[in-house]
């Protein structure tokens, strides 16, 4: 288990924990980022301040802070 921000582009896995508090947690949930969802790291900006992930066909942009509050269990070796 590790935060998204420690993963690299292309990394895939399953969300195991979301540490964010409401209302952010609720927002992440309604975009499909919930415990148990599949997730894939698609992109980040040069300075890694903004991240793009994909879950269940939805692409979502996140700031570093929010991405760091989501923990995933990566499939295979990545990051």
């Amino acid at each position, binding site marked *: 288990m590790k935060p998204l921000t420690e993963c690299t582009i292309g990394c895939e896995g399953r969300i195991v924990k979301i540490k964010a508090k*409401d*209302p*952010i*947690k*609720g*927002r*992440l*949930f*309604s*975009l*499909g980022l*919930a*415990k*148990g969802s599949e997730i894939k790291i*698609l*992109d*980040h*900006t*040069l*300075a890694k*301040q*903004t991240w*793009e992930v994909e879950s*269940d*066909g*939805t*692409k*979502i*942009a*996140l*700031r570093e*802070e*929010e991405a760091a509050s989501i923990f995933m269990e990566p499939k295979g070796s990545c990051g």
Partner: protein
Amino acid sequence: MNKIKVALAGQPNVGKSSIINSMTGARLHVGNFSGVTVEKKEVFIQKDGYEIEIVDLPGIYSLNAYTPEEQVAKKFLYNEDYDLIVNVVDANTLSRNLIFTFQLMDMQKKMILVVNMIDEVEKQGGRVDKEKLEELLGIPVILTSAKEHRGVDEIVDQIIKTYGSEKPKNKLYYDERIEEQIEKLVKVLHKSPHFKDPDEARFIAIRLLDRDEDVYRTIHDLPIFIELHEMLGKIYRDLELEFDEESTTDIMNDERYALSKALVMKALVTPPKKVTLTDRLDKLLIHPVLGLPIFLFFMWLLFQITFEVGSIPMDMIDAAFTEISNTIKGALPSGPIRSVLADGVVPAVGSVIMFLPNILILFLGINLLEQTGYMSRAAFLLDGFMKKFGLQGKAFIPLVSGFGCTVPAYMAARTLKNPKDRIITMLVLGFMSCSARLPVYVLLIGAFFPSSHAGNILFIIYISGAILGLIVAKILRTVLFKGEPEPFVMEMPPYRFPSMKALAVELWIKAKLFLKKAGTFIAGASMIVWFLSSYPHDTSLVESYEKKIETAIDEAQKAELQNELSAKELESSYLGRIGKAIEPVFEPLGFDWRVSVATITGLAAKEVVVSTLATLYAVGEADEQSSTLIERLRENVSFKAAIALIVIIMIYSPCIAAMSTFWAEVPQWAWRGFYLVYPNVLAWLAAFGVYSLLGVMGF
């Protein structure tokens, strides 16, 4: 005729607007939701003796509303009187969308589910089982594709059918342990005369488990509150312990998540995952290195087109209004009515309508960016940079628009969902020098700088404005909006080809609203300016000059006397008196009363500064190229004062049209007041600083 009122609800980017736009025989009406500037689109359809009104609610991800627009949609769903809900979902992201559908179903209203963009799923080899969905959800389901006009008109038939039939029995039940608690809550709720209806009581109970603050507030003032409050505390604790979760909100969410997964498993054949066009475009457009240059190119292109193409009809509109003005002058007898029409209202309305082409092109561009899905990519790319100044990635769009015209820029700030981000952005927007300020800069640079430096000076002025804007944003964020900027969590919708009809409709709406709002306001404001500068008439002054003009030797002298007369007349007008009264304010900046008045009239429109200076320095009709005006300025205004004037123009309040737009967009009086005062104070201080500094340096 029977009336049916329908609430059209759904998550953002599911294509609700395109469904509304492609309905046959629909009349579109655009207004605002009461009390807020969120656009309210309604369509009216007549069919089978029914008058159907469909209200397109702002996109809403969840009843646990987050943004102000979502709050509007939620409030409508909770409080307005309507007959049924049409819930639109995107077939591509069905499972995520259904979670909101469940929340809507909790409301226990008559409801229709519209699964849109079905063509996209089917093209990729997927399938949605309509019958299965209907059976599992217990509500009618329609598969549609707004793009292919498939199923859209069925919605209307289904609305009539559902309206006339009994409400179907609720099929949405949660885990037994949750249902038990819901039942307990319902029992207590029934004690209040407000919640005798079992369906409504159930909904309230569920929302309380969802920790919906709006619902909590409504029960707060009821006599049953104490009992309910105690019970809720226990239920929260019990459930959280039972499910080992932090909050009942999470428990409800997990429940809906599981339900939706199960449902999708039964009713949806998921298409095999392929690399989509969006994936490929994103590889390039948000590339860590190439993304930003590509974005800057698009922006550059947008502004090139806006001002190059926009300026073509501008001259034509200008000429047309001059023509109208001349016709009035020819047709009406000389007098105040002719004067107010020909010199006051017509040129002023013309000067506003002149901006319409610019505004429409800019809006078309921004709409294109929005509807293709590129806007969220731009926000993604710029968020890191903008965050340093306490702004959001999306704030870039209105800020850049500000260089064209502040009016559409204020409206573009609507794309910022967070009210704090939006206010900060709007408060610094005025520092992006709009195109109307260009004539003033050109005049002053021409008068006080060698022509070889003109371009550089102009560039410095524009850049200083932008830098000032970012700095002030940072200060506002640290002083007035303490704390972290709002988190940035945003959906990046797939790239889509925008519907031309939708674009045209949007543009038409924008044009109409702009003409109506700015037109009425500007016409009124300019009448006041006209009145202040034309009255009171000093007849003895006019008579004495008329005699002098009659006895003048040649045409040149006549013209000079005529100019002198207008200057004297202006000096004795209300505006002149105001100028004299405010002169002390501007004296520390080295302004005489004429420059002071010009500065004040610049509040009506920035171009007016040039024409006012020309009139006040009595050189008759003049523009920024006028060499006599430049000479008079050199004689009467010091270099220091000229620079101070440039600084003032750069910073102080924008024109009346822009101010009224701000007024309309921001309902809070505190911000309106702040907005009226702070740019002017800042402008004065900055100008005074520069003036003094130049004095020390020996200019």
